[in-house]
């Protein structure tokens, strides 16, 4: 049993984060000229968009939400762009390459949160909020404590996610472009600051849309090329793949073997997705609830399609990359035996792009991977900066009396500070084991952000006291259980056995949050609690009908 759990843990941590399987020490590669040309085209194009967007970003509303002028289709594409990170493209195709069917299980976990966001969250969020999800959570509760807690949850999620992205990007760029690690990290940080500070949400959205389009086109081309090789017959693709790697790859392996871990991971992925501040923020960029719901429909379609492509790409790599002398890591083979590929299993998709399209297409996919990182970190930084300026500065420090221009200025300063933190953390964590980071970010989003947001919309009896105590309890439990769990306690701190045996704390920390919020709300008999319960009806009417909701600004 323990062995199976360990396999599960090893696999899933390798998955959550691309650089993890790319390996601690990455050899710098020779300069990749087509990749650099295509990357420069992307950077030039997106900086052009940033210039265009900067002229249209005049008010705080423009900065945070692109004036609410994004259509449902565009937003769906941008959400897909936010969600399809380099880690999921390289990581999931790498997992399919390594373990076959298990990769599909993982993708499904990442997808099923989306329908739930549509049915329960998207429209109400759009009808109640303005710039951040804390607007919704604090709608009828006391601003100070709720905003402070929601902003802490947002900033913690954003910084953790940023560290993971920065370290991953440094290693990936080093490998793909032959740039030095520090230079790669600084380049990503500086470009991201430029996009967000000058172009705000409008530039960030278009960077996401372009990147999503490029990634989907590149992945489609690879999948079609693989299928063409097999006359579009899945049975012959699978038959050749099993000849290479054995029949096990067609069945579930060790990924989901222990029910508690499996359910805990499922909860983290589902509720975590619905609590990620940069994803929630995207719902304020559309004009109304109707466009918000259309965004999720398109996003779910793009993301689902993308996961099916990564499955084909992973199998294609088994056939065309595995045992192919061109991609074999001879030095590693001499030590470990087997057929290791250059750069580790997560480079399977990158090598496949070379196998099906030569140097030119390899350059394209490398540039797309870089673009993907830039787009994701921009969205994250904008969400973090909004939590600082809109929730902490304007609502907590200025008590709602800040003017829009000052608020936007704070947001831009916060963007620069977050960018610098991301660069420094990226460099500091280069050789650290950060496999726990994305898992922790999802756990915090699921245990602190989501329960407060969800109950504030659906449960009349929620009070400030309940939300603050329960939300903090969820946050604290998530952090503690990750520290006491196998990854930090055993792998990083070097103890023999974990105090908390599971890698994913969500089942326990989400329960702690919901129970805490429930208990400390129903036992709250203060006058302010009575007022908060009283205010639910007005909030409910607005959340259901959109009467009084923030509209799109005229452009």
């Amino acid at each position: 049993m323990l062995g199976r759990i360990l396999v599960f843990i090893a696999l899933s941590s390798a998955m959550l984060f691309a650089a993890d399987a790319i390996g601690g020490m990455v050899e710098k590669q020779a300069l990749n000229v087509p990749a650099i040309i295509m990357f420069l085209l992307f950077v030039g194009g997106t900086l052009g968009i940033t210039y265009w967007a900067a002229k249209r970003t005049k008010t705080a509303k423009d900065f945070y939400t692109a004036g609410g002028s994004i259509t449902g289709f565009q937003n769906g594409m941008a959400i897909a762009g936010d969600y399809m990170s380099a880690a999921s493209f390289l990581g999931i195709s790498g997992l399919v390459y390594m373990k076959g069917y298990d990769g599909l299980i993982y993708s499904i976990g990442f997808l099923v949160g989306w329908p739930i966001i549509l049915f329960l969250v998207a429209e109400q969020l759009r009808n109640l909020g303005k710039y951040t999800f804390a607007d919704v959570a604090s709608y009828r509760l006391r601003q100070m404590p709720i905003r402070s807690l929601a902003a802490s949850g947002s900033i913690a999620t954003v910084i953790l996610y940023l560290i993971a992205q920065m370290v991953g990007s440094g290693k990936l760029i080093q490998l793909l472009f032959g740039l030095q690690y520090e230079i790669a990290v600084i380049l990503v940080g500086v470009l991201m600051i430029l996009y967000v500070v000058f172009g705000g949400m409008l530039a960030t959205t278009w960077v996401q849309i372009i990147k999503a389009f490029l990634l989907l086109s590149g992945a489609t081309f690879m999948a079609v090329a693989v299928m063409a090789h097999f006359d579009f017959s899945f049975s012959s693709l699978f038959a050749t793949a099993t000849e290479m790697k054995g029949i096990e790859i067609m069945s579930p392996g060790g990924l989901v073997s222990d029910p508690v871990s499996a359910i805990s991971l499922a909860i983290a992925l589902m509720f975590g997705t619905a609590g990620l501040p940069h994803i929630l923020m995207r719902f304020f960029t559309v004009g109304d609830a109707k466009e918000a719901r259309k965004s999720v429909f398109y996003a779910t379609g793009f993301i689902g399609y993308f996961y099916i492509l990564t499955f084909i790409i992973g199998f294609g790599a088994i056939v065309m990359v595995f045992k192919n002398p061109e991609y074999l890591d001879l030095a590693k083979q001499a030590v470990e035996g087997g057929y290791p590929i250059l750069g580790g299993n997560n480079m399977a998709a990158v090598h496949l792009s070379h196998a099906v399209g030569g140097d030119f297409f390899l350059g394209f996919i490398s540039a797309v991977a870089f673009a993907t990182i830039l787009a994701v970190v921009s969205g994250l930084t904008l969400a973090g900066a909004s939590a600082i300026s809109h929730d902490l500065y304007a609502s907590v420090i200025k008590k709602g009396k800040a003017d829009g221009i000052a608020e936007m200025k704070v947001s831009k300063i916060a963007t620069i500070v977050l960018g610098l933190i991301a660069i420094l953390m990226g460099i500091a964590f280069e050789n650290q084991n950060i496999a726990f980071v994305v898992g922790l970010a999802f756990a915090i989003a699921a245990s602190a952000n989501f329960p407060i947001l969800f109950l504030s919309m659906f449960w009349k009896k929620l009070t400030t006291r309940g939300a603050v105590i329960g939300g903090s309890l969820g946050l604290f439990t998530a952090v503690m259980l990750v520290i006491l769990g196998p990854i930090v306690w055993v792998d990083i701190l070097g103890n023999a056995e974990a105090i908390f045996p599971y890698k994913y704390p969500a089942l326990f920390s989400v329960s702690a949050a919901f129970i805490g919020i429930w208990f400390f709300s129903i036992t709250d008999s203060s006058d302010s609690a009575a007022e908060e319960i009283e205010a639910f009806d007005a909030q409910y009417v607005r959340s259901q009908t959109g009467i009084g909701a923030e509209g799109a600004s005229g452009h």
Partner: protein
Amino acid sequence: MRKEQVESIKNDPNFQELVSKRSRFAWTLTAAILIVYFSFILLLAYSPGTLGTPLSEDAVTTVGIPVGVAIIVFAFALTGIYVRRANSEFDALTQKIKDKAKENE
């Protein structure tokens, strides 16, 4: 929103119809995706061999492949079903509520 306005919207039969229909629909679809996904996860945890059964005697493709792809398609189809009904029926009801609320102002 003023208190009287909230009360009048709450008592509007269109509002009550919208809320009860939409809640029932949204929670039913939520239950559908949760049941499908958790059945899949529990099947994997308790009986991993089931999904590893080949589709036919000499086939390599296992039952798990079409099942996995079907869950992805199912998730997308559910969002489509929701959006379709919300765009027509629920939006029409919402419009009626808004019109009435304007009249009463």
